C-alpha cells in the first residue's frame, strides 16, 4: 500500500533527555493511524516533529517523499491537544481567518466554513465569540480550525480530552467520516484505549520515545493478549507479590501482573481454570474479596507492553 508519511530514525534530544529515540514508521494513505503511549512517552514531541513545528536532532520526515520543511503547508492540518483559539473572535471569524491564512479562495472558504459549522454542530454559534462557548463547542471548533483548508493529512492530538460522551460520539463519527467519505489520512494520539480501538486501522504503541509495537488493533490483541483476563482483589493487598509468585506455577497461564493494586491474570479458558486459581490463592492464607472475569482489551496489551508504573 502507498504510504503518505515516512519517519526515518527520528531522534529528539532535550538536554541529554531523549524524548524520541530512533523512531521509524510509515503511515498509509487513507488510514486512521493511532499513537498510543503513556504520558511523557514522546507522542506529542513526535507529532510536532512530524508536522514540521519542531526540528528533530537527527532523522527525517518525508511527506509524499518530500522533506516536511519543504512541503506545501496546506497538506497538513493539526488539531492540538490544548484549545488553541482566539478568545475574542467568533467561530466564523476564526475559521475564516485560518482559511485566509491557507489562501483558500473567498467563495470556497465561505462554503467550507458553513459546512464545517454544520458538520460539527456549531451553526447556531457561528457568531458567538469563543470565550462564550462551552468546553465541548471549543473542542469542536479546535478541530474545525484544522480542517478548514481541507488538508490531506489530519493530525489529532488527544482530541477527546475532556469531552462528555455525547461530544465524544460526534467527534468519533466525524473522524470516521473523514477517512470513509473524504479519504483523508488521520493520525491520532490518545491514551484512551477505546478511542484507539474503535477508530484506528493501525496502532503504534510508543514508550520512552521508542516504537514498541505497530499493528492493527485486532492483531495486537491477538498476538499479545490472547485469552481472558481475571482481575482479583485480595483481602490483604500487601500479599499480592507472594500470591502472584504462587499463581505463576499454574500451567497455561499467559501472564500474572499487579495492576492498580489488583492481580491481573491472563489465561486461555480462564473460567475453567478458576477453581485452580482460587485454590492457589487460598493456599497462601489470603481471601479473595472481589473477582471479575472479562475479555482481553487493548488496555491489557498496553499495560503488558508499557508496564503499570505511573508516568509523569
Amino acid at each position, binding site marked *: 500500500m502507498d504510504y503518505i508519511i515516512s519517519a526515518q530514525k527520528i531522534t529528539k534530544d532535550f538536554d541529554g533527555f531523549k524524548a524520541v529515540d530512533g523512531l521509524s514508521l510509515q503511515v498509509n494513505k487513507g488510514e486512521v493511524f493511532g499513537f498510543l503511549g503513556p504520558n511523557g512517552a514522546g507522542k506529542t514531541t513526535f507529532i510536532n516533529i512530524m508536522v514540521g513545528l519542531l526540528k528533530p536532532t537527527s532523522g527525517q520526515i518525508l511527506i509524499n517523499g518530500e522533506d516536511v520543511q519543504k512541503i506545501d503547508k496546506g497538506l497538513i492540518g493539526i488539531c492540538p491537544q490544548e484549545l488553541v483559539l482566539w478568545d475574542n473572535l467568533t467561530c466564523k471569524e476564526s475559521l475564516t481567518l485560518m482559511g485566509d491564512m491557507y489562501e483558500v479562495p473567498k467563495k470556497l472558504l465561505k462554503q467550507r466554513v458553513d459546512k464545517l459549522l454544520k458538520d460539527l454542530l456549531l451553526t447556531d454559534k457561528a457568531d458567538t465569540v469563543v470565550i462564550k462557548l462551552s468546553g465541548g463547542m471549543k473542542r469542536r471548533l479546535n478541530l474545525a*480550525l484544522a480542517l478548514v483548508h481541507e488538508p490531506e493529512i489530519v493530525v489529532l492530538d488527544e482530541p477527546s480530552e475532556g469531552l462528555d460522551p455525547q461530544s465524544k460520539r460526534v467527534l468519533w463519527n466525524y473522524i470516521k467520516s473523514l477517512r470513509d467519505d473524504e479519504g483523508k489520512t488521520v493520525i491520532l494520539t490518545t491514551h484512551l484505549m477505546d478511542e484507539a480501538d474503535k477508530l484506528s486501522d493501525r496502532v503504534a504503541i510508543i514508550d520512552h520515545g521508542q516504537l514498541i509495537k505497530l499493528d492493527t488493533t485486532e492483531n495486537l490483541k491477538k498476538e499479545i493478549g490472547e485469552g481472558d483476563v481475571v482481575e482479583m482483589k485480595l483481602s490483604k493487598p500487601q500479599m499480592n507479590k507472594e500470591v502472584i509468585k504462587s499463581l505463576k506455577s499454574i500451567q497455561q497461564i499467559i501472564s500474572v501482573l499487579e495492576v492498580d493494586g489488583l492481580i491481573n491474570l491472563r489465561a486461555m479458558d480462564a473460567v475453567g481454570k478458576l477453581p485452580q486459581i482460587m485454590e492457589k490463592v487460598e493456599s497462601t492464607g489470603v481471601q479473595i474479596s472481589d473477582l471479575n472475569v472479562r475479555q482481553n482489551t487493548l488496555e491489557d496489551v498496553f499495560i503488558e507492553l508499557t508496564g503499570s508504573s505511573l508516568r509523569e
Partner: protein
Amino acid sequence: MKFLSIAIKDLKEILRDRRGFFFILLFPMLLIVVFGFAFGGSGGNTPHNLAIINYDQGSELNNQSVNFGNNLTQMLENAKYSNSNVYLFNVTQPSESTADQQLKQEKIDAELIIPQNFSQATVSLINNTILETTNPLSTGSSMNSNITSTLIIRGDTGSMNFGTTQGILVGILSQYKDGVVTSTQNSVRGTPGAQPTEYLSSTVEPIAGTANFTTFDFQAPGLIVFAIILLATTIATSLTRETERGTLARLKLSKMRGFDLLFGAMIPWSLVVVAQVVILLIVAKAIGFSWQGGINSILLAIFVGVIGGIASISLAMIIASFAKNDRQAANLGTLIAVPTSFLAGAFFQLPQASIGTFLGQSFQIYDILPWTHTIDALRTILTYGGGWNDISYQVGLSVLLTIILFVIGVAVFSRTRLRAES
C-alpha cells in the same frame, strides 16, 4: 493580503477586550491629569538668560537715524514681569559663536538674533501703516516698500528653560510689532506724542501673559510619548500571549509569513496610537496645556506619534522574542519602557551627553532612541507651534531609527518565534 486579515483580527481582539483597551488609554490619561495639576501652575518669576546678537545696521525715519535693534534690546533689558519688580531677562550681548557655545553649555536659555535689516523692516512697517491709515485702498500698491526681516530665536527645543524663554519672547515680539502699528496709527490720526521713538515706548509697558508658559506645557508632549512607549509593553504581552496560547504555532503552520503577522499587527496598534495622541491632547488641553498651532498641528502630531508607535511595536517584538509568558512580557516591558521614557526625555530634560555631530547637529547619546526625536518634534509642533520645516530633521532621524529598530525587531522575532523550534 494575509496581513490585512491579521490586522482585522488584531483590531477586533483589541476592541472587543474593552477593559484592556480602556486601561491602555486610562493610565496615560491619569498621568497627564496628575502632571497637569502638579506642574500646570505658574512658571515662577525668575529672569531668563537671554543673549542678544544685534546685527541691525539702522535706518532713517523722518530724516532721523534710528536703530530699532538697539531699541528692542533696551526694551527687553528693562522688561519686567507683570505686577512685579523682577526683570524678565538677564540680557547679555556676546558674539553669535560665543552665544551658540553658551547655549550648548546651558549657560543661557535662548539667543535672539536681530538681523541687519531689522530697522529697515520696522521703518517699512511704519511707512506702510501710515499709508494704510491715510489711504486704506493703497495696500499692496507698488508705492510700498515691503521689507521683511526675520528675528531668530535660537535654542535647544529639548530644554524646558528654552520653552519658557521663547514663549515669553514670542509674546513680546508680537506685541512690539502690534505696538509699532498702533502707535503709528495714533500719531498719524493726530494723537499726541508722534515721535518715532515714542512709537516704541508704549510697547514696553504691559507684558501680559508672561507667566502663561508652565512646566506642564513642556511636559505634556513628553507624557504623550511616554504613553506611546508604554504601549510596547501591551503589544509585547499580546504577541507573547499568541505564542503562549499556541495560536502562533497554528498560524506558523499555515501559509502566513512573518511579514504578514508583524505588518498586520502594526496597523491596529498604529490606530491605537492615533487614538492615544488625540485623546491625550484633548485631556492635556482641558487641564491647561497651552496648545499652539491649529488643526493641522494635530495631523502632524498624529503622524509623528505613529512613527513613535511603530518604534514601540518594534521594541515590543524584541521583548516578545525573549519573554516566555505574558507576565514576563509585562514585567520585562515595564522594565525597558520606563527607563527608555526617562532616557528619551519624556519627563524632564537630561544633561548633555554629546557623542558627536550628525548632519551639523550635536548628537547626544540618547538621540539613538527614536522616541527622543518624537518628543522633540511633538514639543515643537504642540508647544511651540512649529510646522513641518521645524521638525523635518527630527522626523527624518526618528523614521531612520524606527526603520532600524523595526528591522531588528522583525529579525529577532522571526528567528526566535517564527521558525521551527530546534
